[in-house]
């Protein structure tokens, strides 16, 4: 602010602005290259320059050629992420509510739950894989990999819900009780609506952590790969721009998930405002 007084910025501004620009270039530059190259022409290679423009490589994704089973990987990764999202939300919210009251062994349970955050993912993956083998259960994406993903998303979800609930004044629940609400009514009509933005945050986290998870899927996924494993496999054996098209599509899906959640929040809010405006109009015409 002091620098603004004479209309000039201090030299540190230019240094920090340069660092930030380099950071942004480093972050988005390579990704932008991949997105552009995914529109490579039919006879183009893996590098610049573009040899014509086409969407051929996107089409290639959906045939099980020697490129790998991309469509199949999607059809496993997305349902898996949705199941993880759902379970993470349910368990994190319930655990968050439980931890609002002190109970016997709360601290121990908390540490046990959070410890899996610091266990290396690959080790955990191998452990779960071995465990299933010993029990004679074949590992699958919907059983062993699901468990491995939850070991990652549940502690995250729990920590987020801790932060969310710590900002929720207990007097809301007391007021609800005072006004005759049962525990269930208080939860449904007061607590959940107030912490809803936090719950959406947990849901997004659960989805992206699972959709993106590599190390915990590695040994646990069984015979059919999830998307990150499939991409990894492809990098070792294919050399067509289909690889880039895949990168573009997976990124697009991540963005769509985020956009859908943001838009749905916006729609809910718009809906509320509309209702309010309509009510105000009705009141004005009454009086």
């Amino acid at each position, binding site marked *: 602010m002091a620098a603004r007084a004479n209309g000039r910025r201090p030299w540190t501004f230019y240094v920090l602005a340069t660092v930030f620009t380099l950071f942004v270039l480093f972050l988005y530059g390579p990704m932008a290259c991949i997105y552009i190259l995914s529109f490579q022409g039919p006879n183009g290679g893996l590098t610049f320059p573009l040899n014509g423009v086409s969407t051929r490589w996107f089409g290639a994704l959906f045939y099980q050629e020697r490129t790998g089973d991309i469509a199949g990987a999607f059809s496993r990764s997305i349902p898996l992420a949705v199941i993880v999202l759902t379970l993470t939300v349910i368990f994190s919210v319930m655990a968050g509510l439980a931890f609002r009251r002190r109970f016997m062994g709360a601290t121990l349970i908390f540490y046990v739950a959070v410890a899996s955050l610091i266990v290396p993912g690959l080790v955990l993956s191998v452990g779960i894989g071995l465990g299933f083998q010993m029990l004679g259960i074949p590992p699958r994406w919907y059983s062993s990999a699901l468990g491995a993903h939850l070991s990652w998303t549940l502690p995250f979800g729990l920590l987020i819900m801790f932060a969310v609930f710590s900002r929720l*004044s207990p*007097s*809301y629940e*007391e*007021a*609800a*009780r*005072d*006004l*005759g*609400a*049962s525990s269930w*009514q208080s939860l449904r*009509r*007061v607590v959940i*609506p*107030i912490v809803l933005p936090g719950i959406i945050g947990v849901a997004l986290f659960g989805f992206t952590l699972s959709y993106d998870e590599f190390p915990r899927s590695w040994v646990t996924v069984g015979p059919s790969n999830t998307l990150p494993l499939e991409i990894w496999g492809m990098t070792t054996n294919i050399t067509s721009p289909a690889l880039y098209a895949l990168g573009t599509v997976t990124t697009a899906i991540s963005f769509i998930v985020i956009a859908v959640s943001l838009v749905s929040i916006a729609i809910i809010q718009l809906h509320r405002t509309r209702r*309010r405006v309509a*009510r*105000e109009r009705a*009141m004005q015409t009454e009086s």
Partner: protein
Amino acid sequence: MRRPGEIELVNCTKLFGETVAVNGISLRILAGTYCCLLGPSGCGKTTILRMIAGHETPTSGEVRIDGINVVGLPPVRRGTAMMFQDYALFPHLTCLDNVAFSLEMSGVGKAARRERAREMLARVQMAHFADRVPAQLSGGQKQRVALARALITNPRVLLLDEPLSALDEFLRLQMRGELRRMQRDLGITFIHVTHTQQEAIALADLVVVMNQGNIEQVASARDVYAVPLTAYVARFMGGQNVLEGRVSAVMDGMVALALPDHGRAEFPARDSVPPTGSTVNISVRRDRIHLAKRTGDGNADSINAVNGKVVAVEYQGGWVKVTLGGNGGDDFVVNLPDGEFFADPVNAGDTVRAHWAASDVHLLISRNGRSDRPYATGQN
């Protein structure tokens, strides 16, 4: 029929771990009373309120409403309604739906409950704000909505936890008047927790002064202020000087007390006569004391008087607050009407004699084992 809303606490104790929040108190509040629970923070007043509301369960003892022990009953079956300190209005609901909340919980249809909520909002002059959410309201408006939300349950008892503490001075005075008017109109029992002495005596029919989980005095506003029972109450209510002295003689119905600095007090013994040689506290109202500049010896007439040096003079508008130092324990404060002060003003540094009539001396009782100082510094 007797009016409903009588509260009785019987030997109520509340422990939080090792801490005694409320220490075996018994208290009876008649129906239709405006009662203030008064005390510094941590004295247990909010805990009492929450035990009556059903948000806290007494460790032992009973809470009776209209003669029925309500311990273990949910708030809604007690006929109480509580207004929370931060109002606790639900941020995602409009004022109308906040007020209609209890009707919604009991299954009243949408149209009917909104109709009644609208009436209740009109009653607190908030009809125009029905469709706003709490974030769009000022502090005073939130309070009105919170009041409407509590009153729509038709409570026998309204419990108010520091209802005015979040408001600025002007609104505080305005809302204070409205609370009192509302209580008179409804005729139900109001129990109001506050740490502000002025608020309590301005509002209450009955003031309960609390000290570390104990009740120090239960009396009308006027009695708590003018005839405090203990040194703690006298100091907490303000408006009093508390002096400690040793009883040197009791004769002809007069008690003689030796004060520090060679001062003496003499006053008529009333109900209880303290034994000679015992140490007692007396109080003298700050506005019943006169000042004289000390000239020469001045020891000639030192009965019911203290000598001291003026350490501060504060103009208060209608009166002037003169503080004397050098009397051991507490500062000695004299509130002089501005006319009397300016007829013969004193300045900081002057040596003066403060004197009072024997009939203005009030003997305080002592409660063994309890602090007689409401604040660590002992000053107010």
